[in-house]
C-alpha cells in the first residue's frame, strides 16, 4: 500500500515542485533523495548513508555556520532540511548545497537545546525530555510562519534522541533509549502509545522511514542500523532487526525524505536457497561493491536482489564466486581446510549449516568469526562438529571491513559468497560428472518413433551427477537437473534409470528430493520397476508456468528457467564400482499420460513410450512392441536401441551446459561441426558442441 502511496506522493511531488516558489535562501534539494543524511560532530558534518548496505560518504564538512546541528528532518513540501543548532539554540534550514541558514524562530524556550526533531506537513516538531514538545510553522503563507507553539499536555517523559514521521499515517515514531520500547506519538496532543519492545536499547541518534513504512534507527555506539516493520501501522512489529552496519558517533542525527524507496545499486548479494534469508525481503546478506575489498580475483557484479534457486549469481552475470574453495573433504568430527582468496584487508565471517535445517545459526554454525585477512591466498582450518549431519548443505562467506557481522543484513563493503557443501562421514571420495557445479545437457527429439526435425530442443535438461564412494562402493548418488527448454507441444516426463541396479538396493527412507531447493514429500523411486528408476516428473509442462507455446526455444519466449531438481539416492545395498552404470546412467523422457502423441497413435501411449539416448535400454514400463515401428530400428536381441536405419539418434548428451538450437533450426545449422562428428563416428570434432563452434544467430540465448 505504501509503495502505491509513495508513487502518488512522488507524482504529486514532481507536480508541486515544478511550480513551487523558490526559497530566498539556498536552493532546495532537487529531488526526494533516497539516501539518508546523517549529521555528526561539532562543527557538524553531513554524511550520505546508504541504508541498504550501511555505507556512507562525507557530503559536507562545513555547512557555513559553526556548531552541531541536531534534530534534523526533511520537509517534503519545500525540500529543505530543518534542524536545531544545539550550540547556538537556533533553528536552521539546510539547502541542497548542504549550506545552513539561520531562521528567526520565535516561541521556543531560551537557552534550551533540542536534539529531537522531524518535519511533517510543513511543520517542524522538536522535543526535549521534561521540557516540552513544540510545533513550528514552516509555511510562509501562513500567519504564524516560524512561530513555535507548544503542544500543551504532551507527554515529555520519554528518553528520546530522535523520532520520525511515518509516510503513511503522519504519526511520529520513536524508540525510548532506556527501555527499548517503541512509541507512537500524536502531533496533536503529544500523547504516546507504547507499541512493544524492540529488543534493543542504546542511544538511537538517527531515525528514518522509507516509503514502504519501514522504520530505521541507527545506534550511536556501534553504528548498527536496525529495521522495524511498520509497513502495516495497525499491526506493528516492534522487533528491531539488525539491518546494516553503518557509521557510529556520539553525536548523531538523521534526516531522510520518507517518500523515497530505498535505492539498491552497486550491491552484491548471496545465492543460497531462500530459507537462508537470501532475498532483500528477508534482510538477505548484501555488500556495497568496492574495488578495494572482495573475495577472489574478480570484482563482484551488482544485482538488484538475492538470487536463490537455479538462477544463481554466477548464471546471471560474471563468474564472480571465485574466492572460496574447500580443499579437503568436510568430514564429521575432523578438521577441514578452506582456501580463501582475498583482495584488500578485511574481516572474514563464515557459516556452515551443519545440521542442514535450512538456516545459519549464529551461535553454533558460525565457523569463521571475524578473521582478519589481507590480500593473498589463505588456508583456514576449522573443526567439523561431531553433531554435523552427513548430506548436502550450504555455506556462506562474508568479507567486510566490519568486525561484527551476522549471516544476514547489509555491509558497507566487501562481498558475500554462498557455496553448496557436502558434509560426509570420513573417508568418502567424490566423483563429479561433468564437474562439481558444471552441467551436461540432455537433448531430446520427442516424435519417436518418427524422425524429428533435429532441432534437438524438444526437451533440454541440464544434468549433473555426484557419486560418493567408500571402500570401492557407491554409497550415495546425487542427481541434479535444470529444465532449460521445451520446444515441444507434446507432454513429456523425465526419469533416470540406473541400469543393472536392483530396485531393492535403494534405502527408500533416505531418499531426498528437492524441487527448486524446496524439500518434496514424494518418493521418486518409480513403482513397477525391477531396477532403480528415479522419476523426476510425469509431465515437465506441469513444472513450469509459461504462456509460451515453445518454452525457451523461440526468441519471443523470454521466460526464466523455472524448474530444478536435486535427488539424493542412498543405497542400503551399495553397488560396487564395477557394477555401477557409467555416467550419465540412463536418463530418458516418456510420454505423459492422457496427452496425445500425434501420428501413428490411435490412443495416447502415455508411460508406454520412452525415448532414450542411443543404445540405452528401455525400462520395464515401456512397451517393447513400439520398437522397430516408424523410423526406429531398435532391436532388443542385438541391444540396438533408439537409432534410425542411418544410425541417427533421438536423444544426445552434450558435454557442457550447451547453447541449443532455436526452434525448428536443424542442429547442423547451429553446429556445422556436428556433421563430421556424426559421420566419423565420434572420431572427429569431439568438442563440436562448445560455444566457440556455434553459429550464434542459430542458437537460443
Amino acid at each position, binding site marked *: 500500500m505504501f509503495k502505491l502511496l509513495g508513487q502518488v506522493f512522488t507524482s504529486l511531488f514532481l507536480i508541486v515542485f515544478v511550480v513551487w516558489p523558490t526559497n530566498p535562501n539556498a536552493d532546495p534539494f532537487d529531488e526526494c533523495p533516497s539516501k539518508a543524511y546523517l549529521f555528526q560532530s561539532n562543527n557538524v558534518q553531513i554524511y550520505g548513508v546508504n541504508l541498504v548496505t550501511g555505507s556512507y560518504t562525507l557530503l559536507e564538512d562545513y555547512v557555513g555556520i559553526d556548531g552541531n546541528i541536531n534534530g534534523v528532518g526533511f520537509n517534503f513540501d519545500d525540500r529543505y532540511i530543518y534542524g536545531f543548532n544545539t550550540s547556538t539554540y537556533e533553528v536552521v534550514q539546510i539547502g541542497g548545497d548542504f549550506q545552513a541558514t539561520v531562521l528567526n524562530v520565535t516561541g521556543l524556550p531560551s537557552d534550551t537545546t533540542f536534539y529531537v526533531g522531524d518535519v511533517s506537513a510543513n511543520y517542524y516538531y522538536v522535543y526535549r525530555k521534561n521540557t516540552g514538545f513544540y510545533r513550528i510553522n514552516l509555511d510562509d503563507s501562513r500567519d504564524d510562519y516560524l512561530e513555535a507553539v507548544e503542544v500543551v499536555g504532551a507527554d515529555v517523559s520519554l528518553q528520546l534522541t530522535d523520532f520520525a514521521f511515518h509516510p503513511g499515517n503522519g504519526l511520529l515514531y520513536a524508540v525510548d533509549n532506556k527501555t527499548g520500547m517503541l512509541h507512537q506519538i500524536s502531533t496533536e496532543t503529544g500523547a504516546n502509545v507504547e507499541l512493544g519492545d524492540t529488543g534493543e536499547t542504546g542511544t538511537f541518534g538517527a531515525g528514518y522511514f522509507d516509503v514502504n513504512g519501514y522504520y530505521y534507527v541507527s545506534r550511536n555506539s556501534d553504528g548498527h542500523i536496525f529495521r522495524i516493520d511498520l509497513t502495516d501501522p495497525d499491526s506493528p512489529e516492534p522487533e528491531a532487526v539488525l539491518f546494516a552496519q553503518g557509521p557510529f558517533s556520539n553525536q548523531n542525527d538523521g534526516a531522510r525524505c520518507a517518500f523515497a524507496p530505498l535505492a539498491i545499486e552497486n550491491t552484491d548479494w548471496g545465492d543460497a536457497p531462500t530459507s537462508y534469508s537470501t532475498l532483500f525481503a528477508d534482510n538477505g546478506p548484501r555488500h556495497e561493491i568496492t574495488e578495494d575489498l572482495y573475495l577472489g*580475483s574478480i570484482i563482484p557484479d551488482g544485482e538488484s536482489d538475492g538470487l536463490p534457486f537455479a538462477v544463481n549469481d554466477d548464471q546471471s552475470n560474471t563468474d564472480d564466486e*571465485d574466492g*572460496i*574453495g574447500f*580443499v*579437503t573433504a568436510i568430514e564429521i568430527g*575432523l578438521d*577441514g*581446510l578452506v582456501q580463501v*582468496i582475498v583482495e584488500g584487508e578485511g574481516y572474514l565471517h563464515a557459516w556452515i549449516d551443519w545440521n542442514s535445517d535450512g538456516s545459519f545459526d549464529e551461535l553454533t554454525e558460525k565457523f569463521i568469526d571475524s578473521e582478519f585477512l589481507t590480500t593473498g*591466498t589463505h*588456508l*583456514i*582450518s576449522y573443526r567439523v562438529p561431531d553433531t554435523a549431519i552427513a548430506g548436502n548443505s550450504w555455506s556462506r562467506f562474508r568479507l567486510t571491513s566490519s568486525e561484527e557481522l551476522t549471516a544476514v543484513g547489509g555491509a558497507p563493503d566487501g562481498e558475500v559468497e554462498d557455496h553448496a557443501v557436502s558434509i560426509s562421514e570420513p573417508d568418502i*571420495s*567424490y*566423483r*563429479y*560428472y*561433468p*564437474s*562439481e*557445479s*558444471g552441467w*551436461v545437457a540432455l537433448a531430446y527429439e520427442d516424435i519417436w518413433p*518418427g524422425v*524429428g*526435425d*533435429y532441432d534437438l530442443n524438444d526437451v533440454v535438461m541440464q544434468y549433473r551427477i555426484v557419486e560418493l*564412494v567408500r571402500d570401492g562402493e557407491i554409497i550415495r548418488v546425487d542427481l541434479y537437473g535444470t529444465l532449460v527448454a521445451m*520446444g515441444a*507441444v507434446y507432454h513429456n516426463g523425465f526419469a533416470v534409470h540406473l541400469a543393472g541396479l536392483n530396485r531393492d538396493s535403494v534405502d527408500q527412507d533416505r531418499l531426498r528430493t528437492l524441487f527448486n531447493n524446496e524439500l518434496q514429500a514424494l518418493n521418486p523411486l518409480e513403482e513397477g520397476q525391477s531396477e532403480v528408476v528415479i522419476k523426476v516428473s510425469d509431465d515437465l509442462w506441469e513444472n513450469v508456468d509459461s504462456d509460451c*507455446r515453445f518454452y525457451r526455444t523461440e526468441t519471443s519466449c523470454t521466460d526464466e528457467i523455472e524448474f530444478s531438481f536435486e535427488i539424493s539416492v542412498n543405497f542400503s545395498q551399495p553397488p560396487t*564400482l564395477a557394477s555401477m552404470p557409467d*555416467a*550419465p546412467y540412463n536418463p530418458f523422457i516418456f510420454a505423459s499420460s*492422457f*496427452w*496425445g502423441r*500425434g501420428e501413428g497413435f*490411435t*490412443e*495416447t501411449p502415455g508411460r508406454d513410450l520412452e525415448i532414450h539416448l*542411443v543404445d540405452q535400454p528401455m525400462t520395464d514400463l515401456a512397451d517393447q512392441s513400439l520398437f522397430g515401428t516408424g523410423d526406429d530400428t531398435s532391436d532388443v536381441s542385438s541391444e540396438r536401441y533408439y537409432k534410425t536405419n*542411418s*544410425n541417427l*539418434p533421438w536423444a*544426445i548428451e*552434450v*558435454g*557442457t551446459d550447451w547453447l541449443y538450437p532455436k*526452434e525448428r533450426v536443424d542442429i*547442423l545449422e547451429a553446429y556445422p561441426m556436428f*556433421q563430421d562428428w*556424426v*559421420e*566419423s*563416428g565420434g572420431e572427429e570434432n569431439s568438442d563440436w*558442441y*562448445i560455444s566457440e563452434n556455434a553459429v550464434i544467430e542459430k542458437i537460443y540465448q
Partner: protein
Amino acid sequence: MEFINEKIINEKIINEKIINEKVTNIVFGLFMIAVFSQIIACGGGGGGGESGTSQPTSVVPEPPPPVLQTKDLVAPDNFDYETSSEVTVDIKLPELSGRRAFVSLFSQYARHENNQWRPDFGSRLMMEKLREGEINRSIKLTHDIDKVLVQIWTDNKNDPPYSKEITVDNATLFWRQ
C-alpha cells in the same frame, strides 16, 4: 517438433490441443508459402532503374543448392554418441604416505603471476583422500576437456598444495614420484 510431415491427424487422440496446433501449423505453413511466393514474385520487378527499360526477361532462377539436413546424415553402425570417456587417475606420492591429504582434479584453472595455480572450484572433477600416498580411480571426462589440474592438499594449513597440470591424451592421468 516435426513440421514437415503433417499429414496425419488422428481424431481418436484425446488431446484436441495438439490437433488444433497441428492445424494451425498447416495454415501457417500455407500462409508462409503464399508470402514466400509473393516475395519471389516481387523479387524480379523491383530493382535496377538505370536503363529505364522494362523488357521482360526469361531468366529461370537457379534452384538453390540442397541444404544438408541432419536426417540426411549416415552414422557408422556402432556409433554410441557418447560425449565423455573414462580415464584412470593414477597418482603416487610416497612422501605423502601416512599423511591426511586430499587430491582434487579441476578442468578449469588459471596460473597467476607468482606461478600459483588458481583452480575454479566449481570445475572440480573428483576429490579423494590419498591412501598411503596414492590413489587409483576411474572417472569420466567430457570431450571438451583436454587438460586437468591436479592439486593435493594436506590438512596442515601451512603446507602449500602439490600441483601438476596433466594433458588428457590417453586413458590414464599419471603422476608418480
